[in-house]
């Protein structure tokens, strides 16, 4: 009976569509729920003085000015170390090694394993290596470098896949024009891989800004305005964790700080995107 099987198929098809839509709705609702909760409870406490002043009474009152400065400094150190090294390794993996050679496979696997390591392990490593062995102590420098180690694997992997996806004709075209290898990479391949670099950068910024476990033992707990990169400085995520889990009556300030953190991540991501867009578009002119 062809009509029955056709209606069966239609029913199955509809069920499938509903299921898929339910999944999409679930994800959207979860996101709206989380954001809504933070906006409703946090936005009312946001004032200019909250953003600029120093925390007082263990963070219950006062603001998060010093903590914002520390967070941005830690992020600058992390990105400053991770971007050049990461791009270097990605270029090496995709342009300088024979694809699927044993060595490049080993490096690739190592990166994948490193990307899956929990952040607390990076924190313990950072504490042992940067803080104690290199003698940086609890400092923004050791916190930022620990974060750099943490975001490197995922940044390298995304950049590398972006570079590998560039059509081989571009490499040949550059060669035909007599461009040196470095010029071809700098002027043709990296700009072509810009979307992947942006994606890697955004993932890295998101992970680094939201990190608590790796920072509590490296950049530390001090909520004073940092005088140098060798001072300890409390990151925003550490502050939120302490307020919500350790400080009695810190919930309101925690929600407000979470609101600032989310706004900060959105701002940083859009800035990163537009910066890379501008930077690379200056080097390729389509005519």
């Amino acid at each position: 009976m062809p009509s029955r099987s056709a209606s069966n198929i239609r029913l199955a098809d509809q069920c499938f569509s509903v299921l898929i839509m339910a999944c999409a709705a679930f994800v959207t609702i979860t996101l709206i729920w989380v954001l809504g909760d933070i906006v409703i409870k946090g936005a009312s406490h946001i004032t200019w003085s909250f953003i600029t002043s120093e925390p007082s009474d263990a963070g219950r009152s006062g603001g998060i000015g010093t903590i914002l400065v520390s967070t941005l400094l830690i992020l600058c150190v992390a990105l400053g170390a991770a971007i050049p090294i990461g791009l270097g390794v990605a270029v090496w993996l995709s342009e300088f090694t024979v694809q699927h050679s044993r060595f490049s496979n080993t490096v690739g696997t190592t990166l994948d394993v490193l990307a899956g390591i929990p952040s607390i392990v990076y924190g313990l490593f950072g504490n042992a290596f940067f803080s104690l062995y290199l003698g940086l102590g609890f400092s923004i420098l050791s916190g930022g470098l620990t974060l750099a180690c943490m975001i490197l694997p995922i940044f390298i992997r995304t950049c590398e896949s972006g570079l590998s996806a560039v059509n081989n004709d571009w490499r040949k075209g550059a060669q035909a024009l007599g461009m040196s290898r470095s010029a071809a990479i700098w002027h043709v391949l990296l700009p072509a891989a810009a979307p992947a670099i942006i994606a890697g950068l955004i993932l890295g910024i998101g992970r680094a800004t939201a990190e608590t476990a790796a920072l509590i033992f490296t950049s530390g707990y001090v909520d004073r305005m940092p005088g140098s990169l060798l001072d300890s400085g409390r990151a925003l995520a550490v502050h939120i964790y302490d307020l919500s889990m350790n400080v009695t009556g810190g919930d309101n300030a925690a929600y407000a700080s979470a609101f600032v953190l989310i706004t900060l991540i959105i701002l940083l991501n859009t800035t990163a995107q537009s910066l890379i867009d501008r930077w690379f578009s200056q080097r390729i002119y389509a005519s």
Partner: protein
Amino acid sequence: MLFSITSAHSMALLFRRLKVATCSLAAILLIGWQPFAFAEKSRLTITGSSTVAPLTLEIAKLYEKTHAGTRIDVQTGGSSRGINDARNGLADIGMVSRALKPTEKDLNGFTIALDGIGMIVHNSNPVTALTDAQIKDIYLGKITNWQSVGGPDLAITVVNKAEGRSTLELFLKHFGVRNSQIKPSVVIGDNQQGIKTVSGVKGAIGYVSIGTAEYEEKRGTPIKRLTMQGHEASAANVANGQYPLSRTLNLVTKGAPSKQAQHFITFAQSDAVKHLIEKQFFVAP
């Protein structure tokens, strides 16, 4: 499609940018290192108990304000860490949220505040008091339903503290049990986490700092403190020494404290910081 590449122009641009970046980096480092060199002489590092850390941080801020040119860095991580860091010299002063043990004779302890530990349940629970034996049986898994202790027919959710927490050590010592004997449903870290867990589960029982519990109850968080050995779990009873389950919050140093550390410890034990202790929901000794 044809691409023309403006190589010379962009290289010049790039070099200019690199130069700016290098200069600003050098400037940051130069400015950055200078105060570090100056501050070195009068810097104290204090690490340890996450319970004591917010109080010490507040005391340190007041101390910095009244003693120009001093810097006190407070780091958290737990009492065990405070002991370790004080021992191996990483910290000038350690923070420990319990009395020192006989094996810690090499350290000097200075009590700065008291803290009681109260048993808490969800406030819909009609049970108001439990005997020590009942609490022990609940944590050992011998009593698993509130019905057995005069409550409703509801499974008991046992909330225990994580290994290394001073509250756990104090609890184990008071009830004479080992942590391996306890059958917890949930293992938690800080006080606030304990309160959030118990307020969210109707059949839960847990133990947290009394000052914190009092404050949360007043704010309307659905938790309730249980009376222990006939004494209400209140800050007043901790202060007068009647409440049976309490601990001291201490600053510790390896051997005798340095002159500067001693100065800070004396300040932390003085009346000048009493209001700070109460603000952090602890009891002044």
